[in-house]
């Protein structure tokens, strides 16, 4: 799987695309594959504060629930409404199906996240390949 080079990643399998002060957040293809058919996304409300490393919502599949961890701190500016009616879009294209957009309160936080190459390596180690 090719992980977009311009995204950054967490060890909890979230991705973030940073553009100026805005970060777009979703979960990786590895995460959607592990979860299976996604049936519900519990996303925060616009205006909510999120803190790096803390739970900001969850994703539910038929067989499991998975917490979502914020890759950065900031304020939620937008939530992907499509996922309310079609959560399975994450299964179809995890790297395009964003969950929330955040206005970063600390731009430096994104720098400590994994690069695509590092995330790829991390996943390979996790799965023993």
């Amino acid at each position, binding site marked *: 799987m090719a992980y977009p080079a311009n995204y950054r990643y967490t060890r909890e399998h979230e991705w973030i695309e940073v553009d100026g002060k805005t970060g777009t957040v979703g979960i990786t293809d590895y995460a959607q594959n592990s979860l*299976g058919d996604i*049936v519900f996304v519990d996303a925060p409300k616009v205006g909510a504060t999120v803190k790096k490393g803390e739970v900001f919502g969850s994703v539910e599949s*038929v*067989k499991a*629930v998975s917490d979502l961890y914020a890759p950065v701190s900031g304020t939620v500016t937008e939530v992907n409404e499509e996922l309310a009616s079609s959560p399975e879009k994450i*299964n179809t294209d995890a790297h395009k199906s964003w969950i929330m957009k955040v206005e970063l309160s600390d731009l430096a936080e994104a720098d400590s996240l994994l690069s695509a190459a590092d995330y790829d390596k991390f996943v390979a180690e*996790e799965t023993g390949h």
Partner: protein
Amino acid sequence: MSTSATAPALRKTPLNAVHRQLGAKMVDFGGWDMPVEYSGLIAEHMAVRTGVGLFDVSHMGDIQLRGPESLDAIQHICMNDASKLQVGQAQYSAMLYPQGTFVDDVIVHKLSDNDYLIVINAGTREKDFNWVKTNAQKFHCHVSDYSDYYTQLAIQGPRAEETLQKLTNVDLSTIKSYWFKWGTVCGLPNTLIARTGYTGEDGFEIYVPSDEATSKRVWEEVLEAGKEFGIVPCGLGARNTLRLEAALSLYGHEISETINVYEAGLDRFCKPEKGPFIGSDALQQVTAAGGPERKLVGLEMVDRGIARDGYGVFDENARPIGTVVSGSPAPFLKKNIALAFIPKDYSAIDRQLFVQVRNSMVKAKMVPIPFYRRPKKQS
């Protein structure tokens, strides 16, 4: 990565390599390396409800009882009345402990007057075999473990008959539900074809020789025959959501060594009037005491939330009253459903209850089970 002492190797069915080649996600199920999904749980579930799906269920076990007292042995060990069976007929039944709780649920097949086949669960193979062997000792019959002799495939769905018909000389329309016949399937003579299953749909289970080459060939021929009906291979994930919609019991959830027949709501498969059997005394006492204290009920989530295995059930005053034993989204019904044990005083259809979903109390209501019944066939 965690490091731990080497666990015993997982058992494999003869189709293990085939599942892996198909890219199946594999899981440890009761010590077996089994496919949990191939193309996706929801797609597989819907294929069975609307077309046809194929399952490898070879992990299940097969016990044969042969001899002049094989029926007596079964009547002693199993709770349903096997004397009602005709040759070619099968029945859902269970083996009970003396306390009236479950050793396992089974399907008993009458092959001939002195020859019975009991199909048992994968996770309880050895326990069940030893249980039958020990308790059949006093009867004139021979108990054999045939589990590894068969690759067992389940072909399930409204188009299952049309699919399998292409592969056999037996007129499948003459096999009624819970009956079986022998015939040639995929060129293999004397193959057992049973109209049984665990999905709530019409379907068949076939028992073919367990060598890898034959197993693979039959698997592929079934997939080819079912292509025009949209057949897909189906894993344990869909198997679970299908059986849950049909409110069929899963050992360790709705039935177990601590749950009795009446709590599980399986009264109709239990025939104390046939005479004593292992567990019948204890069940008689349950009846004499006014019935079971708790009952298995169906729940449907009213507010947004998915009830899952192990979640607590609460009454309208936030008092804990029970536990969910099986819960999941239902892909066909498009609802979130669950089976739970609650005290018998709470069992009223439409009664409002709550399930604790992570940190919230989510509204649920009692509904009749099964949640899903397949449509009546148009003749």
